[in-house]
């Protein structure tokens, strides 16, 4: 371990110990019968927003949030506040939150769905990479994209999650990563999309991708192929498949949504239909996942390594959070009803054979703004966006202007599914709503025999 690395680790251990000490001081003040869960979410990030291959808006973020859950006599309430890093101030803040929770609990009824782990699990996950020099990385990117109309967002830094409970849970998870999500735009308005994320910044993959994009942009400068609404063969690249899978993730696998008949997978769950048997979806954690996500949940449970959500076209297991687990009597297997680390079993169509297998049809790089047109039929609408081309006789002919599709996922991943790609792509989420997302998907592309376009 390098001396720099050793220094980093001692600083990280210090941060962890500060949090545990805060939790222990709070817990020392709890009363008989009270159970207290303390959670920390902290982020130190740099963001650089780029337009026309120049910096549009760049800056840094530091925040640390404490979340408390107080439980007594089958009643529970939650409160959250800031942590400044000053132990005296932070303890005063935390004690104020605890006082507010105690006052509140007096007025609350018993919660029949209260559930938390009573097994005092522990874990430590330290970052596997040195801090990324964001300014250098951004300069690398701008240099590699010289002459391109590049628009994108660089995000890098550290996300820390901690959990300490009066039961004895002690969990600490630090992930340090970067994500660069971008698109390169042609003069006629078309664009191609790229995304690269990981732990160790190396400009080489982005440089290579940018060079490949220059060739793609030349195609985008051709006159667009006009297409009338209708059904078309289509290759959905992994990023496009991701948009469709995101729709399934929206209440599809949540136990509560399934039991209250709000899942878009009702017909699948009722046995009225099946996906193609080649479709299997898993939720992977631990060494099977990306290690960006912690293993522990807010209630102190450990996420299992592997869950099969769609099993060879048939329903697998639902995602069961603590509350739903108590309500429906199932073991807890998730932090929430939404998947965070999905993987689809790849197929057997090599990427080198995609165009010839497609023949005549649409090569779709991305889909955009998907939403339900009829959730009871698992029917989705959305738009093509980046990197969408008309292919004739296995060769890319021209770009295609944005088109709206409206089709059922039962059809796209069922009767119309012709092949899944042999290679999967790891897609780290670029989302930063409420904080940098640690989610990911590992997906192949999909060849569909008919996809309905309506506008």
């Amino acid at each position, binding site marked *: 371990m390098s001396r720099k690395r050793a220094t980093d680790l001692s600083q990280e251990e210090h941060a962890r110990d500060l949090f545990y000490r805060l939790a222990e001081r709070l817990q020392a003040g709890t009363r008989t019968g009270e159970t207290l869960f303390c959670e920390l979410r902290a982020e130190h*990030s*740099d*963001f*650089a*927003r*780029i*337009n*026309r291959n*120049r*910096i*549009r*808006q*760049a*800056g*840094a*973020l*530091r*925040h640390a*949030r404490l*979340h408390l*859950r107080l439980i007594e006599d089958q009643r*529970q*309430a*939650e*409160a*959250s*506040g*800031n942590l*400044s*890093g*000053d132990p005296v101030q932070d303890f005063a803040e935390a004690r104020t939150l605890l006082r*507010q929770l105690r*006052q*509140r609990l007096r*007025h*609350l009824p018993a919660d029949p769905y209260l559930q938390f782990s009573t097994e005092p699990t522990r874990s430590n996950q330290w970052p596997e990479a040195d801090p990324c020099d964001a*300014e250098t990385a951004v*300069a690398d990117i701008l240099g590699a994209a010289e002459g391109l109309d590049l*628009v994108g*967002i660089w995000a890098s830094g550290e996300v820390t999650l901690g959990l300490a409970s009066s039961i004895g849970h002690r969990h600490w998870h630090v992930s340090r990563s970067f994500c660069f999500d971008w698109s390169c735009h042609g003069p006629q308005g078309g664009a191609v999309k790229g995304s690269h994320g990981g732990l160790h910044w190396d400009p080489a993959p982005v440089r290579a991708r940018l060079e490949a994009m220059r060739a793609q942009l030349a195609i985008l400068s051709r006159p667009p192929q006009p297409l009338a609404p209708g059904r078309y063969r289509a290759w959905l690249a992994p990023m496009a498949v991701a948009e469709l899978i995101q729709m399934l993730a929206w209440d599809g696998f949540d136990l509560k949504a399934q039991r*209250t*008949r*709000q899942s878009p997978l009702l017909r699948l769950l009722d046995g009225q239909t099946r996906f193609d048997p080649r479709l299997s979806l898993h939720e992977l954690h631990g060494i099977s996942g990306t290690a960006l996500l912690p293993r522990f949940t807010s209630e102190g449970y450990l996420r299992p390594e592997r869950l099969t959500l769609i099993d060879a076209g048939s329903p697998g297991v639902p995602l069961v959070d603590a509350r739903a687990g108590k309500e429906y009597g199932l073991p807890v297997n998730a932090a929430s009803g939404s998947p965070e680390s999905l993987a689809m079993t790849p197929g057997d169509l090599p990427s080198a054979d995609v165009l010839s297998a497609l023949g005549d049809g649409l090569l779709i790089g991305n889909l*955009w*703004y998907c*939403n*339900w*047109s009829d959730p*009871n*039929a698992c029917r989705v*609408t*959305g738009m093509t*966006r980046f990197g969408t081309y008309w292919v004739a006789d296995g060769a890319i002919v021209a770009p295609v202007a*944005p*088109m*709206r599709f409206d089709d059922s996922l039962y059809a796209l991943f069922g009767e119309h599914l012709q092949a899944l790609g042999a290679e999967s792509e790891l897609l780290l989420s670029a989302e*930063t*709503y409420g904080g940098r997302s640690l989610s990911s998907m590992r997906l192949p592309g999909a060849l569909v025999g008919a996809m309905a376009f*309506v*506008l």
Partner: protein
Amino acid sequence: MSASFTPALDRAHLAAVVTDFAASAPACDYWSLRLVAHQWDRIEVREDVLEPPALGHSLGAMLTLVMRAGIGYAATDDLSPPGLRAAARRARDWALQHDQSGLFDARLHPRSAHRAEYASPVAQPWGQVRLSEKLALLHQANQALAIDARILDRAAWLDWDCVDQLFVSSDGAEVFQHLEYLDRGLLAVANAGSQTQRRHGGGFDQPRQGGMETLDSADFLAQAPRLAEEALALLDAPECPNETLDLILMPSQMTLQIHESIGHPLELDRILGDERNYAGTSFVTPEMFGTYRYGSDLLNVTFDPDLPGELATAAADDDGTPSERAYLIRDGVLQRPLGGGLSQARSGLPGVACARASGWDRPPIDRMGNINLEPGTATLAELIGGVARGVLMETNSSWSIDDSRDKFQFGCELGRLIVDGELADLVRNPGYRGRSASFWRSLDGVGAPATLEVRGLHNCGKGEPNQTIAVGHASPPCRFRQVEVFGGTP
């Protein structure tokens, strides 16, 4: 009395923070500091069970520095002198990088010396109503929703937010705004076999600035059985027909129509290309302003920061620019974009004070504020009476639009056929699709002032890094001719 909250903003303390920072601010051409204290309380009862209530607060600062041609920002919740100094160093680092590789000369960035104060009108503060009363109301609503065994899920909620924001600058700006919001709602979910229908109500898409006085408890409870009845009725209703029909949109759907196909396309930073990697661009180009026919003569759309109680009513934006009402579209012709001071300077176009951030941890970008469709002269009966065959739709359930804000598709919770000028049968899963330019030109009926409803959204998402923000949309019901409508899959 409910559990007391930490005072959102001790102004004396914050004044001290500002004074300390100003005394040790790094040498630069301009700085601004935006301190934001946010408190919240979330209470929901679902299927007669109280979800864990959640209260919280957050206090932090967004520092922006301009140095030569560069600009950088740093956001922090460590407001100690060392914490702010560390933030200033990071902002300076990024400003220096922008100075070398920036998209624009940061000397274009607006510099504010504006001084103003604003406070949401609050007649009955959140904390004045006992928690037990709020819980009782939500439980009553739950019971009022439970009218049939086919109602498989039901919920009632109250969400309260209080934001205190102090904006100061090296040029002497001081803008203090106290904003309080109440968001409430009801949900009934009915199911039969593989058909599930939802009805939202209780003001769920009518968040307002204000306190508990904005909640009409009687109406909140009175709506509950109607929503449940409608959800049940939709189970047995026929699908909305797949046809080209005349369309009347109630304000509960006009909100999304205005939002997606007027508000977003007019955001100037989109027109300038900043959002092309994420939220998208716009079919609107700079040359269109002043001449482009966006819609029929009946289309009048304003940016209105003055409407009492509307979500985005404010004295100034988050760059410290004073807010003023302005027409965005007048008599159908495009007038000006939604662009704050920086976008105006970059483009040479006029704009409005709409540089807004979701909180202290994000920098301002061009956002909607209150974007309102001004009322016309028709009663709802007159709008309906002018339709031989059509559909009336209410309450948005789905929204999708292309990245240039042109090709859209929306779904609603409930539709009613219109036949020979009269409302007829209920239809389920109603949706419609179209293109922004042609759609607004088909507008041929706008409700009178008495039909105007003030609504809004809390979840407008945009920007990189991402941020969600509250926007207001007031609108009357409107009539459109010959729109492609459709229903669910049989």
